[in-house]
């Protein structure tokens, strides 16, 4: 095979996988064994192998969310050996490769654990709470058409770059899963920062942060206690600085609120 590591030996692994038939049912860890796993496989390709084995054996395959398999869509969301997206820093589950594991390893695979992310089935969770937070204000209110020329709003490169860094959040929920409080502050702060930094977001700056934080609380996410595991486990490196920006924006908005509601 054209893999980069022709000498790497296939591995045999033990998997402890969370199985839960549906949202209401009680779940449990079930042990499986997979054989001849290539170190060049992605973690999800390893799960594909397990699921093909299960199907052939007439058993229900393990449900998990995934799609692009190149680290950008934010669908995949596995809690691997107690860590969001597994052991490799700055990596989504789909980009985690089996060369990070060794022959004979036991790997525990769970869904995100948070009250605001109920389990759909097995490893698939419902993250629609994130969508509702964005719906509460994570946008600039401009209709299609009538926008001024793109170059009419010059934006300093460093500001634009910082906004971009915040905007790269993929909405996977790893921050929530990593946080002992199941707080969504990093997710919320990324969008608030992006739009607070840019002139386009200025008009709705106060109402945006107030409404998004209110929705975050309503969804049942926990409070932030500045531990920082969210940023440490974020696959795309969203910085903790964004939470500082969020706190400042929130306080400033509350102090000078023109939110009449």
């Amino acid at each position, binding site marked *: 095979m*054209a893999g980069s590591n022709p000498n790497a030996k296939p591995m045999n692994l033990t998997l402890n996988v969370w199985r839960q038939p549906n949202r209401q049912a009680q779940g449990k860890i079930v042990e499986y064994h997979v054989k001849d796993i290539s170190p060049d496989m992605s973690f999800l390709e390893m799960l594909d192998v397990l699921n093909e084995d299960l199907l052939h054996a007439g058993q229900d395959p393990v449900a998990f969310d995934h*799609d692009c*398999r*190149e680290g950008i*869509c*934010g669908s995949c969301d596995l809690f691997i050996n107690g860590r969001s997206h597994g052991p490799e820093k700055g990596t989504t589950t789909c980009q985690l490769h089996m060369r990070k594991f060794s022959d004979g390893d036991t790997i525990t695979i769970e869904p995100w654990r948070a009250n605001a992310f109920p389990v759909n089935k097995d490893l698939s969770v419902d993250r629609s709470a994130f969508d509702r937070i964005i719906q509460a204000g994570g946008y600039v209110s401009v209709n299609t*058409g009538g926008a001024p020329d*793109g170059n009419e709003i010059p934006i300093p490169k460093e500001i634009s770059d910082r*906004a971009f860094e915040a905007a790269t959040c993929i909405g996977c929920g790893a921050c929530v899963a990593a946080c002992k409080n199941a707080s969504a502050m990093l997710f919320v702060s990324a969008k608030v920062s992006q739009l607070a930094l840019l002139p386009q977001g200025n008009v709705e700056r106060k109402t945006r942060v107030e409404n998004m934080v209110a929705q975050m609380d309503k969804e049942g996410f926990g409070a932030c206690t500045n531990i920082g595991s969210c940023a440490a486990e974020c696959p795309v490196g969203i910085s903790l600085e964004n939470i500082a920006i969020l706190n400042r924006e929130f306080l400033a908005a509350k102090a000078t609120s023109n939110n009449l509601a």
Partner: protein
Amino acid sequence: MLLDSKIPEGPLAEKWEKHKFNVKLVNPANKRKYDVIVVGTGLAGGAAAASLAELGYNVKAFTYHDSPRRAHSIAAQGGINAAKNYQNDGDSVFRLFYDTIKGGDYRAREANVYRLAQVSVNIIDQCVAQGVPFAREYGGLLANRSFGGAQVSRTFYARGQTGQQLLLGAYSALSRQIAYGKVKMYTRSEMLDVVIVDGQARGIVTRNLITGEIETHAAHAVVLATGGYGNVFYLSTNAKYCNVTAAWRAHKKGAFFANPCFTQIHPTCIPVSGDYQSKLTLMSESLRNDGRVWVPKTVEMAERVRKGQIKPQDIAEDDRDYFLERKYPAFGNLVPRDVASRNAKMMCDEGRGVGSTGLAVYLDFSEIIKRTGADAVSQKYGNLFAMYEKITDEDPYQMPMRIYPAVHYTMGGLWVDYNLQTSVPGLYATGECNFSDHGANRLGASALMQGLADGYFVIPYTIGDYLAQTPPKPVDTNHPAFAESKAYVQARTEQLLSIKGTRTPTQFHKALGHIMWEYCGMARTAEGLKHAKGEIQKLRKEFWQDLKITGTGEELNQALENAGRVADFLELGELMVDDALNRNESCGGHFREEYQTPEGEALRDDENYAYVAAWEYQGDNQPEKLNKEELTFENVKLTQRSYK
């Protein structure tokens, strides 16, 4: 059947303006009496749903994802074209139009492409206003780069994540309308049929992927924005869920399928590493701006590389063949995708491929790293280099990347007229799922442009014309056509579950992908295509006798979802082969070995094949009927594409 493309009269540059004036308008107070269904929430669907809701229509939007932010538009790396001419380098609407028509090897409609170039400038303005953080210069103005076969810098980008930023922009606009209650969003809902009432599209049937419930939804018009069908090849750069099912079910309900054989093979993808491979990963075309493509000059040297006896960085300059620079001195490494892909294949066919399978060529950054330093290169391509290293465990700062072509985009799709309406009244197709703007080959940074053009700036006008002529009476799902569609979907689900054979959906999918790649991939022959047709028919028969899936239809059942999609791919595959066999010429991504110039370039036959092949479904296992839309070119001269 005569296909009326409804291209407006008048000079090219005035068609769209005139058409916008001539279309009928829906009274603002009446807009809320109309319901529109939008299927798919990528760039085209998200933009359409948001824009239609802003106008006042009631929109129901559907996606099989858990959120409207996940569609595969998000993975587009390189950028989005617009004829802004901010760089003062000679760009114009006409030049973007010309490049796109030529790049598509003269198999696209002039009027559509010109409109695309016209609205391209509005897209950038719209996205900036939404807060999309495009790359900027130190003076604060928007930055551009040249990209994929263009000789001007007209590509706007957000590092290597342009698709993500544009999709999140559309998602934010959509989210705002969901909050206002103007869009009702249905996530984890897969469309499995279109409902036709009295010849008009009046709704859809979906399966709730969590509960398995089969649901019916009614509306005055249906917009499909369901993406491309590249996964018919099993391995492609598409996301795993990308499929043809929505478009195919529409096809079976009367929407013609146009130019299905026009598929794009992207030259710069990470090569296959094993049988377990589930997808292929693209390395952005922007890398060809600075990376140089080469293979060893001799077969002997290539063999030593393949055996690991010599490292690429130790091969002397004189022993390297920078084949694109050698063969195409004017465009060099920036030749269009089809040309670059075909040449990589030729090198590997000659035995000069690298990597242990010999199915790869090098993309080398050593020169630019030497010239500008690793930091500068990292600024530009850092995330791509990191992704490459993650997948291959090789450091592209130290040794050249290995790349190979892979299926990336499908230019073919549902036939639409100038209004983006399919051959079924009230049924529209936007973005990659239609066939309209890219001819036989799409240029880089044009997919994002088309998706957003269709969604933000075309469909809001053209659908109004249709709705204005449709009485605003409520439509409901009690019409027998809904029950009929629902019964069809339920029966098909039951059938898939009842086979209880021995082979999984993935096994069938891989087998189909193998046939398609071998015989209907980068190079095609009449003989190979005929063989493929028989193989696909055989495989399809086996599928319905030997499929194995577990579980029930009343739960989250990913194997069942997959089986339904593979079943549709097994039908589409045959149509692609028929289309490739019918088109006795080479053009763009469609390369028939029998039709090439002495230099091995695609040889078109404008006399006989300057038409859109629009296929009409005739029933299960029946040959489809070919309808032709003749393409007329009044503003460009058809020439042999040359990038020398």
